[in-house]
């Protein structure tokens, strides 16, 4: 088994392409995206807010989860760039340690 980093980014749909461009530009070998169904956030004001996928055809209120597993050497550059993106857009970024079987794939 080989050590890798798993990045999870939940980001609003309008910023999805920007996030993908950052990942691709940093040289990650792949990522997958899933639609988020609903969520809850306490927010800065302390007023909890629930949200769910809307029916608006522009999907501007939707959220997407991007999962990418990458080499440990890439993670700092990727998170630095994504940090700027989620500084502007609605999003949550997390990184965890994972192990993979096929080293060459990531």
């Amino acid at each position, binding site marked *: 088994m080989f050590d890798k980093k798993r990045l999870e980014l939940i980001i609003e749909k309008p910023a999805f392409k920007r996030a993908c461009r950052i990942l691709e530009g940093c040289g990650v070998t792949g990522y997958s995206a899933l639609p988020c169904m609903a969520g809850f956030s306490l927010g800065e004001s302390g007023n909890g807010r629930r949200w769910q996928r809307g029916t608006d055809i522009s999907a501007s209120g939707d959220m997407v989860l991007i999962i990418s597993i990458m080499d440990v050497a890439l993670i700092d550059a990727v998170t630095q760039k994504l940090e700027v993106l989620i500084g502007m857009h*609605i999003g949550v970024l997390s990184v965890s340690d994972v192990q993979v079987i096929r080293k060459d794939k990531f």
Partner: protein
Amino acid sequence: MSLDLALSTLLSPIVLFFVLGLIAALLRSQMTVPEAFAKGLALYLMMAIGLKGGVEMSKAVLGPDFIFLALIALILSFGLPFLAYLALRLTSGMDRINAAATAGHYGSISIVTYVAATQALQLAGISTSGYMVAIAAVMEVPAIMSALMLARKGLKEKGAIGEGAIGSERGELVREVMLNASVVVLVGALLIGWITGEAGMEKISPFFVDPFQGVLCLFLLDMGLSAGRGLRQGWRDLNVGALGFGVYMPLISAMIACGFCYVLNISAGNAALLITLAASASYIAVPAAMRLALPQAQPSIYLTLSLGVTFPFNLTLGIPLYILLGQWITGL
């Protein structure tokens, strides 16, 4: 006559289904319209509206009347956000960025409000021109530019100029704004209707004409649910000044459009539609553009106002009023 018109609009199935959705959401009912189905309904409605408008346009030669009206529509869409911004800043104390983003919504249009107005006019026996759909399409985008111009000062204060769209992303932003789903479907269907004319429409009318009213009821049920949910979640972010803006701004816009209608001397039906378009607020094209170009603005503020306050107001009380204004201004 005016009371009859108001009552027939208020008690029409489309408004009642909207109210049903709104009440269901406010009472936290579990009722939902499946997401993909609702998106399909929105596409269907825009295609039907565009096709119908295009067919009507193919029957007549577009003259100077249309060009002047399109020009006025452009001016309204571009200019109204500046007024809305000023009103928001003065009455709600909203910060520059959120005020600019919200103001943009009030220069652009709501196509569903437009459809509801055409239905009410049809019910009242007042005729309108098919090219008004093209006028609606003209009003979708200019307000977005106004909002971005208005936001510049706020972004400068925050030291965030250029954060929304950097370098090559500006191209993406322009493409997303100009080619947003509602504009593409509406203008595309309008052109198809124009090209194929009455003969083309005959072939597809069992799908696009006959079920239109029923589909509109389903769509407005979903809109009611969305508006109710938005209002339930977002009202805490709005003060009394902002909530009031959601009601008085459409009336100010309506009065300004009324003045233009008087100068242009257009028919009562077209005047009512232009007034409705000016008074409506976007909840598809502008929110999508704002999330891309002005992500610092809070969607809970501008969406709650446009979808949760202004849309229900226009659908229930605004439309009869705008029709009366249209009749009054052309009778002067």
